[in-house]
């Protein structure tokens, strides 16, 4: 087997592994009992999609996919922080609503 063929094979194999991990994280997003579980699953999916962009950049030699990965890292962090703040504030707001 030439090294070129081995590279093609490993690109395909890592595509499959990354996509399977995306699907598994989506299962946790669907069934996760609490909001924190879902936020963790979304964070995991964002990091996995960055990996998908990397594998796609190797498979197609398109360098612009790395810009997509960079922007996704920025936006994913903001989404995680916003959802975590929301989950933390929800109970306080519930208590305030009860007192009123």
């Amino acid at each position, binding site marked *: 087997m030439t*090294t*070129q063929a*081995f*590279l093609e*094979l*490993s*690109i395909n*194999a*890592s*595509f*499959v*592994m*990354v996509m*399977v*991990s*995306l699907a*598994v*994280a989506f*299962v*946790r997003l669907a069934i996760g009992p*609490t*909001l*924190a*579980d879902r*936020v*963790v*699953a979304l*964070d*995991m999916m964002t*990091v*996995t999609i*960055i*990996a998908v962009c*990397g*594998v796609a*950049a*190797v498979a197609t*030699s398109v*360098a612009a996919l*790395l*810009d997509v*990965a*960079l922007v996704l*890292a*920025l936006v994913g*962090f903001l989404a*995680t*922080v916003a*959802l*975590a*703040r929301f*989950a*933390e504030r929800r*109970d306080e707001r519930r208590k305030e609503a009860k007192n009123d």
Partner: protein
Amino acid sequence: MTDILISIFLLLGGFFALIAAIGVLRLPDVLTRMHASTKAGVLGSSLILIGVALYLQQTEISVRVIAIILFLMLTSPIGAHMIGRASVRDPKTKGSIDDLAD
């Protein structure tokens, strides 16, 4: 020779991403799931991105890859800390993580 190195990085990255996803699905509560997703997930995508930098071999690509990896390693502990604090303070999940309750 470089092809084999790139292949090893890609396969290792995919393997760690898979391990992280299995951990997120199978571990028992929020804090242990977070432990799987932050550490193993960031390691997996960092390895894949190092493979991209070795494959394309341009300076601006390498700079971008280093920026993405640094940003992931900087932000994922912060995000995990915030989710963990929210879940510990949540009265619904407080029973399942009882060791930390006052």
